[in-house]
């Protein structure tokens, strides 16, 4: 008999049928009687003061029920307590092309769109900032008045004595790396439906219910309460199925609040669903990051110091920015053993959509730089790149110089696995020119040890209710967003209670029904909500065991719960239990409902040596009354990090580890890079559902591949040039390489059944693995991603000392400089900023606006 009966086995997700048949409901699939359609008016300018908004013409249009503007909800909010700098609808200023100005609620989408055209806005244009390094020099016309030099936040951390260590290093590598901006592009556009009930006592608007495609229902409830000035208890947030998040839905997106404001004004339910272009404007993706990195090593390849200066182009609002810039520095630690670290991080505001959290939050771009530089160092020292990584391993359990506690550490095995499977030793450096292998490593938190809202509240709480039918209902606030959170919850509860999955029903993410959980982000759900589920199930199990033990005349800890049966440990061999299975085949227990209440108890049946799960449950309810349990999880104090300023970000109860080898070929004529295969090993602690873990690893690799090769948000004067899925170019089935996921199980001492995170940590290794493979193939070191054909060709020409090609030289200056330029709706309606400095119309405009391009 194996150790576990439910976990560790590949199973279909509990909500899979709803997804494959189309029966499952996402927010935009919902419909309420009398529901109106909301449409939002967006700013056409990157930075402007609003002098006047006149909605009167729009309000008069037949079919328009309400028009709301910033005045209808003037309270600022933001996901971080330190970053309350957003308004659901702009009050006095717009700060990016796409910023929200007004919302129309109308009986149909056509009418709402027509009404948007009738809203008159008078702007006073202000100089705009698009480049973070330029923006940092700003003295006037600041994006937010309380942020001098447009710097949202800067941190300067020194651990050990990096200057001294660098001076003692045998070799110091130095370089500037740039990772361009990418976005989540989840398949489901954001959607929110808001509806008020009338209060029977006051006769006025009462409780509010919001259905939303969110990763964080409880944060949404909190921010709605803040902006609408309603008590949280009057607000219910329900999360239906969510069509992917990746961090893009991990904070409150303006439409969620706007829908509620519009519903309040219209006195009717209002649904707002973004179109794809609006999703790109809502953004909250990974910022363009400029990394100046110095790594010092000894002759044997042991790293003795790292200095990093990181500048992030954060866009117009704070969003998760303060956390992002801290992660970039904090997670320089906990992967390798580095004793001296200096980190200068700048989160800078620019007039572009706000950047926020995206898969691998804050770590991905810096990891690209670090792992690429480590490869350069290995080449310099004539060391095998896999070997130099092995020489810098941590020795856990340990606490890193910047206060991160590491317990389980599967990195060595991850490296061994990918080296072996890719035949690294035989092939690395020996493939024909044009084809190469590269390695990269990465790690990520299994949830943040400190919540973004400082409090002593547990990060996850789970309730379990079991009734006389033997059905187990688990109530969890954790948000299923496609990653398998509900399935994980069901598996852990079923395994602990020893019952079949068919008995499990997970009720999730409904603030009225489920206990609080801070949401699905920073890969925290398996570790934290999983632990809470485990504890809740153990509490219920204890109650069942005490009742069953009375019937079986043995101590409760002698009982084994497994496969829908409860039996005494000494009697529970395979053979003994086989005879029982027939007895419970019908699945019904005599007197299931009535026994203990109306029906007389049977005469003493004598001690039993086994019971079905239902019999045990009925016995427990007879004995205790209602059968419920609750469990919660808060990270232990030892895992919460150091004391320095900003120490709260980075610590986690456990870290996942990943190593990858990528095999690529480079076409030296076209500059095109093809990834043939990626071997991806990931230490997830324990794989609760291997098919899901594989899926998360492959998905991470694949998203990293997109950022490495194709995906980039292209800007021109603050206008997004590629706000469409075709132009943004996330890889399709044609471009996706074969990925061999390799699960490494390090069994974390605190994870539920030893599990850690598995859905973010792998992403960061893919980009440097590909960069290093390109170097192996053709000898060029690419320090800016994505590695597009243009950049590859430029580097190849530089390698041959040829003149770089200027693709746009001598061409019409107003012509698009990139093939995939698209420009979006505003562009085509002639509302965008003018296109090119030589465009006469723009010269007139810049004379008025000024500008910083």
């Amino acid at each position, binding site marked *: 008999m194996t150790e576990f009966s439910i976990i560790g086995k590949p199973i279909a997700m509990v909500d899979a049928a709803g997804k494959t048949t189309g029966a499952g409901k996402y927010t935009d699939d919902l419909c309420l009687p009398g529901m109106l359609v909301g449409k939002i008016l967006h700013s056409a300018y990157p930075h402007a003061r609003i002098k006047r908004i006149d909605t009167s013409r729009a309000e008069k249009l037949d079919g328009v029920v309400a028009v709301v503007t910033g005045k209808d909800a003037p309270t600022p909010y933001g996901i971080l307590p330190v970053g309350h700098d957003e308004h659901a609808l702009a009050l006095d200023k717009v700060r990016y092309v796409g910023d929200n100005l007004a919302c129309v609620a109308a009986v149909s989408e056509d009418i709402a769109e027509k009404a948007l055209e009738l809203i008159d806005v008078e702007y006073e244009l202000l100089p705009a900032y698009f480049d973070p390094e330029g923006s940092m020099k700003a003295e006037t016309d600041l994006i937010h008045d309380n942020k001098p030099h447009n710097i949202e936040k800067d941190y300067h951390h020194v651990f050990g004595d990096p200057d001294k260590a660098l001076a003692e290093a045998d070799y110091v590598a130095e370089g500037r790396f740039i990772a361009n901006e990418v976005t989540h592009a989840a398949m489901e556009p954001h959607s929110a439906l808001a509806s008020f009930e009338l209060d029977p006592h006051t006769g006025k608007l009462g409780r509010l219910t919001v259905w939303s495609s969110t990763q964080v229902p409880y944060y949404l409830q909190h921010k709605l309460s803040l902006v609408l000035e309603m008590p949280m208890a009057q607000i219910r947030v329900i999360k239906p199925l969510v069509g992917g998040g990746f961090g893009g839905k991990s904070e409150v997106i303006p439409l969620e609040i706007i829908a509620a404001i519009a519903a309040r004004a219209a006195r009717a339910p209002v649904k707002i669903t973004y179109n*794809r272009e609006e999703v790109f404007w809502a953004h909250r993706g990974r910022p363009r990051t400029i990394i100046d990195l110095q790594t010092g090593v000894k002759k044997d390849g042991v790293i003795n110091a790292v200095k990093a200066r990181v500048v992030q182009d954060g866009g117009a609002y704070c969003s998760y920015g303060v956390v992002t810039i801290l992660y970039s520095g904090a997670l320089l630690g906990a992967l390798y053993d580095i004793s001296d670290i200096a980190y200068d991080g700048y989160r800078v505001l620019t007039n572009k959509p706000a950047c926020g959290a995206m898969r691998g939050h804050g770590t991905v771009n810096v990891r690209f730089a670090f792992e690429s530089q480590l490869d350069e160092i290995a080449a310099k020292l004539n060391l095998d790149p896999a070997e130099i990584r092995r020489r810098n391993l941590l020795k856990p359990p340990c606490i890193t110089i910047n206060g991160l506690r590491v317990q389980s550490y599967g990195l060595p095995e991850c490296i061994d696995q990918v080296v072996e499977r890719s035949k690294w030793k035989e092939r690395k450096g020996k493939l024909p020119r044009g084809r190469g292998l590269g390695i990269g490593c990465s790690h990520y938190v299994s949830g943040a040890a400190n919540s973004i809202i400082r409090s002593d509240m547990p990060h996850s709480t789970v309730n379990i209710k079991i009734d006389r039918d033997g059905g187990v209902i688990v109530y969890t606030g954790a948000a299923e967003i496609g990653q398998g959170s509900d399935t994980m919850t069901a598996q852990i509860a079923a395994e602990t209670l020893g019952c079949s999955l068919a008995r499990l029903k997970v009720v999730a993410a409904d603030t009225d029904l489920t206990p609080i959980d801070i949401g699905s982000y920073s890969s925290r759900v398996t570790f934290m909500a999983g632990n809470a589920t485990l504890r809740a199930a153990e509490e219920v199990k204890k109650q069942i065991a005490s009742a069953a033990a009375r019937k079986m005349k043995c101590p409760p800890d002698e009982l084994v719960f497994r496969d829908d049966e409860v039996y005494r440990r000494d009697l529970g061999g395979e053979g003994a239990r086989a005879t029982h299975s027939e007895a419970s085949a019908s699945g019904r227990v005599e007197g299931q409902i009535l026994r203990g209440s109306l029906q007389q108890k049977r005469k003493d049946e004598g001690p039993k040596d086994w019971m079905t799960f239902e019999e045990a449950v009925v016995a427990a309810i007879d004995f205790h009354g209602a059968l419920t349990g609750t469990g919660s999880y808060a990270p232990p104090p030892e895992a919460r990090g150091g004391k320095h300023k900003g120490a709260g970000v980075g610590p986690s109860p456990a870290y996942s580890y990943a190593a990858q080898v990528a095999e690529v070929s480079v076409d030296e004529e076209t500059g095109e890079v093809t990834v043939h295969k990626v071997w991806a090993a990931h230490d997830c602690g324990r794989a609760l559902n291997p098919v899901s873990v594989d*899926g998360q690893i492959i998905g991470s690799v694949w998203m990293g591949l997109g950022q490495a090769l194709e995906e980039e948000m292209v800007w021109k004067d603050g206008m997004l040039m590629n706000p469409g*899925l075709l132009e943004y170019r996330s890889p399709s089935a044609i471009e996706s390489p074969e990925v061999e996921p390799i699960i490494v199980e390090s069994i974390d001492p605190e994870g539920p059944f030893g599990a850690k995170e598995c859905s973010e940590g792998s992403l960061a290794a893919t980009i440097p693995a590909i960069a290093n493979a390109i170097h192996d193939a053709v000898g060029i070191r690419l320090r800016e991603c994505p590695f597009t054909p243009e950049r590859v060709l430029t580097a190849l020409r530089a390698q041959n000392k040829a003149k770089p090609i200027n693709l746009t030289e001598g061409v019409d200056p107003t012509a698009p400089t990139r093939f995939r330029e698209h420009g979006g709706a505003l562009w085509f309606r002639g509302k965008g900023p003018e296109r090119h400095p030589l465009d006469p119309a723009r010269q007139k405009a810049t004379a008025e606006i000024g500008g910083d391009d």
Partner: protein
Amino acid sequence: MKKELIELRVNGRSHELAIEPNKLLLDMLRQDLQLTGSKRGCDDSSCGACTVLVDGITMLSCTLLAASCEGQEITTVEGVSERGGLAAIQKAYGDWGGAQCGYCTPGFIMTVKHLLAENSDPTEDEIRAALSGNLCRCTGYSQMYQAIKAAIDAEQRGMAAVK
């Protein structure tokens, strides 16, 4: 715009509908028939989440006028389940992790259905080519190939369920 009466056949049933002549098939399915399985992921035929079959051919319902489909047989993901049970491809997508968030899944199911109707034993390259018009952001597609192969095996074994 003034509504007109049209008759459409969807998943084997006829519906008489009063709709605007400029109404898109996707909106008609989702709003008028409450068949919300077909999804809107973009606005310009780039993602494939709205894929349906029109007379057995995959079409993107987000850029197709509903009125233009009069007299044709429309099949949506809701019409794929066989005799009240999961079709082999649906079961396989669940078992092999072909669906994570599931938003793109109905479109993929329709595309695969069409692929397998045309070619009962496609190679991996043929599968990749067929799927390339649909975008998925979660899975990296690999597990979909496994699911499709499993569904083909199940079909060949004449079973309705795979495992």
